[in-house]
């Protein structure tokens, strides 16, 4: 099954998230991640959805999302030149003897240490999922105490025509 990345714009109204997540559940779609926040337009939220499925299923997901009254636009950016990013916060075991090792690893990944405790460090990394995964893999042997990932956010690179489902620029 392929991974597809969809961007959906929706009215920022109570219950809208519920409509979207309820749709995924009842239509039995296999959603890998979903991240939502404000867009550049007031009152409009932007959601990035990563869905597993073949072309036919993804076509259905796009159309079903688009059918929700509060969803104003949906595009599938999977086949377009896009920037994909994810942010992760990783709290990793780090006794005094391990700290410098971990800090070194972190800098190789262009990640940052955002909190230092007596026995642990919290690392922030932003990048494509592959980079986030690699860092997590390398930190695992130290013992990861807590992990928070945002899921993918996506944006089509400039200089491309857009493939909006309704031909709207955003």
């Amino acid at each position, binding site marked *: 099954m392929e991974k597809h990345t969809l961007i959906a714009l929706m*009215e920022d109204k109570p*219950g809208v998230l519920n409509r979207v997540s*309820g749709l995924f559940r009842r239509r039995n779609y296999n959603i890998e991640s979903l991240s939502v926040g404000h867009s550049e337009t007031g009152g409009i939220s932007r959601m990035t959805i990563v869905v597993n499925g073949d072309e*036919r299923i993804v076509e*259905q997901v796009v*159309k079903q999302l688009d*059918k929700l*009254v509060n969803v104003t636009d949906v595009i599938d950016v999977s086949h377009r030149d896009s920037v994909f990013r994810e942010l992760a916060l990783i709290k990793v075991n780090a006794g005094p003897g391990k700290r410098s090792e971990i800090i070194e690893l972190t800098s190789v990944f262009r990640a940052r240490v955002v909190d230092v405790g007596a026995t642990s460090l919290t690392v922030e990394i932003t990048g494509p999922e592959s980079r986030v995964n690699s860092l997590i893999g390398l930190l695992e042997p130290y013992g990861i105490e807590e992990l928070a990932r945002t899921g993918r956010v996506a944006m089509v690179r400039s200089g491309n025509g857009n493939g909006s489902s*309704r031909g709207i620029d955003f």
Partner: protein
Amino acid sequence: MKRTGAQAVWESLVREGVDTAFGISGGAVIHLYHALPDYPIHHVLMRHEQGAAHAADGYARATGKVGVCVATSGPGATNLVTGLATAYMDSSPVVAITGQVATPVIGTDAFQEVDITGITLPITKHNYLVTDVEELPLVMKEAFYIARSGRPGPVLVDIAKDVQAAEFDYDYPDEVRLPGYRLPAGDISAQLEAAAEMIESAERPLIVAGHGVVLGAAEDSLLRLVEQTQIPVVTTLLGISAIPETHPLCLGMAGMHGEAYANLALAEADLLIALGSRFDDRLTGPVDGFGAQAKVIHVDIDTVEINKNVLTDLAVVGDLRDVLPQLISAVDERNRDEWLARIRLWREESAQRDIVGQETDELVPQFVMRQIWHATRGEVIMVSDVGQNQMWEAQYFVHHRRRGLLSSGGLGTMGFALPAAIGAQLGLPEQQVWVTAGDGGFQMNIQELATVVQEKLPVKIAIMNNGYLGMVRQWQQLFFEGRYSGTPLLGPDFAKVAEAYGIPGITIREKAQVDAAILQAVETEGPVLIDFRIVQEENVYPMVAPGRPVNEMIRRPMPTGKR
């Protein structure tokens, strides 16, 4: 204009052309009911909110207008759920108005609080929770717009009690504000040209007419298309009445209990033209074998239906109201004699197996349905319930009247018929409305007999009483070792129940009494209930066994002495 929220609701309904609403009162709608007598709206007091939702749905299906139902918060609202799901599955335009607890206590598990917008999310086209009276006019406007436009469906508006009581400056908007709601508007001329080419080159084309033809009021266009192209038509259950079943090119209903010749045509066709049908599994059987020899043209107002169940070769997204006239001008006339001759042979073979043509003194339901058709000349609105009785009605009543059959197709809701018939009768007071139901389903909303009497509705009721949850019993007989688990059903004396409500009740046990009873019902001015004690273990044939392709049917055996 100063108005309370409650007044604003009724005033908005009046502006939307509503003159009838079905409901039951309660604490969270007491303000609404207090304001009601000042408005020209006939309120029909139902005996259960499920009945209110089905009645609104039946009203909508019979008239094409939006049906309205009202319920209080909590249990009133949850009782609407089956009715809303029924309307949603069958794309019926309904607006449901529910009361909600007052805004300060929402979320506190207040008395009779339930999250009805959450509950109905997957069974409404859209819904609203109104917590600010200033939003109310726009919400009402949008609710009606959404319910009736595009692919119709139910919309629920949940209004907090304090919002109903609040005063504000009422002004009904002229326009909706729905940036995410758009109707199909693309140019389809290229698709239609392609469709015309596919149709012209097809040797064995078949039209599958669905509910969309009825909802789009495209019956005339369909008839013209059929006559011009000589393409035969099968219908879905809800597509019945999209084309008169008396028309020689109409093969009737196809699918699990479709006519054998209709299903054979489906299997043998080289082009399927689906018009406003969503390829429900009761029509198609397993989709991988469906229309194996055919290319598929799918016309639907809802783009989501394209490629959902059956892969299409050509999709046309639009309202059949607009699409069919354009398609008619794109296709040429053509003779299809060879194809039609083949279908005629299948049809003749089916006629020989038909139980109604056979000599039997037994009281079989097929005969009852056929005689209701004869006695009414088909000029009535049939409202059928669910189960074997629903299939016998679909098979043996010959529907030619527009919107002449109302039935719960998608959800298959037992208990639909009586309240839906109440809605239909109120929407079309001049028409004769018949309920056909099983002994099981009828007991699911039997309380609405009181509404029939209170509203003085002349609804005719025919119960096919077989003492079983018959459709389930049939499956048990055929596929579950004949183990009748949970299906034998003790009913009341329905005629006496009717009499207790003030409705004349008749019990029929003999075939010879059938015609007289039906005639009495037709000629009586008010309502009549007839309890037909039919053969208990009669089955619906043909039947496509679950998981089998539509052309592999279990048939009624050929009677001895014939062929």
